[in-house]
């Protein structure tokens, strides 16, 4: 896939509204058939990015290429790109059929062709039989599907989706995430989706682009973004994170020996560090291991398997029940709060820890991420 030319290429794209900067030096290549998600908080410029590609607004500087062609000055109606709007933007005075047929009619397709393709598109989104309805007679989920059908019926090179699921309730959103993903696989159309929901981004896309304040922080496959965040911002945005501060003691090949409080910890990192660099150690709650001091004392085998590199001591503050898992909030003796996720035991479905328990905290070696200290 990476050998071919990109379908969408953004080079040094900037967008300013007066003094306000929406996008800064965005470079991004999107390849044919990819499902790319632009992930970021509201106001980070992700919708602006879509609007630039769709042609609703001009870039302030930089270039956008579609299928190898520079699209500067090309109005939206001349771009082989279609958009699914957050508000759906269905035409209220037209039936479902006319809504979906609009793009084909604008391109002067023959009536039989329109009939056939609208029928196909509606059956793809499971709305066969709804042709004569008006948008206001449909539920939110159905309106959303009409919006998708209206866009894909034109067989665009790229489909742009601007937070298309944000107005739906949780269950429907989950279902539509799957449906959209299957639709994309089936049609082979390149999708660029914008969302602020990291779960949505991870579950649907081939590649996630994390945007912050108009800049791309990281772009890569979901697991890479989650497991190897490039900086603290990305790490925090894509999930819960625990932070420990350390100092590089010495470097032993691929391994780095850190000094964190009283402990010497040996960790792996693909970054290069020099002795006495300050670092952050990032740990996901599910990577942490927590045992009570009492259990460790009672069970030497457990203690041996627990952590040979040592552990931190702390006190359980509270436990938060999550259904399949529960979170344990621990205040370490060094004053740092830590959140660990625990699974229920097969034989014991009760929350094991109690507030006030003295515990030892360690982690599964090799699952930590090391980042240079950020001011």
């Amino acid at each position, binding site marked *: 896939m990476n050998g071919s030319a990109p379908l969408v290429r953004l080079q040094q794209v900037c967008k300013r509204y007066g003094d306000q900067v929406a996008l800064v030096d965005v470079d991004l290549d999107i390849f044919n058939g990819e499902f790319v998600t632009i992930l970021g908080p509201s106001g980070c410029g992700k919708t602006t990015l879509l609007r630039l590609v769709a042609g609703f607004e001009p870039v302030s500087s930089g270039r956008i290429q579609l299928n190898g062609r520079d699209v500067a000055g090309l109005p939206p109606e001349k771009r082989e790109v279609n958009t699914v709007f957050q*508000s759906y933007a269905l035409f*209220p005075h037209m039936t479902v059929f006319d809504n979906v047929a*609009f793009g084909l009619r604008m391109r002067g397709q023959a009536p039989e062709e329109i009939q056939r393709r609208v029928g196909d598109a509606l059956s793809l989104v499971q709305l066969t039989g709804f042709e004569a309805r008006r948008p206001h007679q449909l539920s939110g989920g159905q309106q959303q599907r009409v919006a998708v059908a*209206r866009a894909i019926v034109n067989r665009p090179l790229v489909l742009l989706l601007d937070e298309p699921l944000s107005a739906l309730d949780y269950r429907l959103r989950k279902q539509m995430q799957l449906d959209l993903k299957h639709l994309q696989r089936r049609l082979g159309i390149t999708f660029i989706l914008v969302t602020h929901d990291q779960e949505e981004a991870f579950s649907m896309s081939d590649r996630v682009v994390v945007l912050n304040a108009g800049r791309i922080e990281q772009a890569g496959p979901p697991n890479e973004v989650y497991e190897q965040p490039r900086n603290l911002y990305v790490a925090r945005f894509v999930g819960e994170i625990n932070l420990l501060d350390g100092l590089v003691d010495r470097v032993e090949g691929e391994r780095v020996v850190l000094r964190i409080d009283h402990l010497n910890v040996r960790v792996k990192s693909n970054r290069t560090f020099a002795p006495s660099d300050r670092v952050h150690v990032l740990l996901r709650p599910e990577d942490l291991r927590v045992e009570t001091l009492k259990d460790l004392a009672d069970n030497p085998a457990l203690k041996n398997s627990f952590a040979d590199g040592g552990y931190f001591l702390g006190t359980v503050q509270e436990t938060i029940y999550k259904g399949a898992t529960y979170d344990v909030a621990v205040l370490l003796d060094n004053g740092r709060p830590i959140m660990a996720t625990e699974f229920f035991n097969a034989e014991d479905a009760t929350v094991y820890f109690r507030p006030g328990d003295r515990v030892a905290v360690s982690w599964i070696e090799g699952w930590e991420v090391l980042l240079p200290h950020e001011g």
Partner: protein
Amino acid sequence: MSRSLKIAYATLVYLFLYLPLVVMVVYSFNASRFSMQWKGFTLHWYDTLIHDASLIQAALHSLAIAAVSATVACFIGTVTALAIHRWRFVGRKVIHAVLFVMMMSPDIVIGISLLVLFMTLSLPLGFWTLLMAHVTLCVPFVAITVHGRLQGFDPHVVEAARDLGAGEYEVWRHIVLPMTMPAVLAGWFMSFTLSLDDVIIAFFTTGPTFEVLPLRIYSMVRLGLKPEINALCAAMILITAVAVVTTQGLLKERK
């Protein structure tokens, strides 16, 4: 208890508003020529009415002026609304504010100022001056009604149409115009009623060559109340009521 109080209150309000009209309509069927006494039911006054050539002439003038001025005002008002909605140009806010000022201005001020203008331009008072006056009266109502509807639209609808391949013309033709049409028609009926009911502006801006119904009624009343006038007013109420109901229906549709 409180329910019957509410009903009583509502009844009083409606009586206050509509009793005079009801009395007038009832007396339009009264067989008595001079007194206010009930002398039996008759359609005689309606009969005299339709055989009074000069009165019919005035009524036709009124309807013509109302229809033409409503149509012209609709055109100007709709274009104005579309312009202030679609484009951000210098003076846009001023136009928007001026529309409200014009809507709120007392009729007598509009009437006299137009009279001064027409006299300065030495235009003979008649059909054309009255038409211009009524168009001026109606444009703000149309513009504000249509603008209100445009404001209610999802702004992305136009973008969606562009995105699907519609050029500027197709967007107007297939999206903006059909979506604003109910408001435009409502504006037309509103204008029609305004023009039909206007006495004050017409008083200043039309001449003896072109007499309209409200002015005619006004001069008739100066010579005393006649049952024909009751009948005439009853007929006008009917036309107005139809126009108002139609306007409401159009504005409510597809909200």
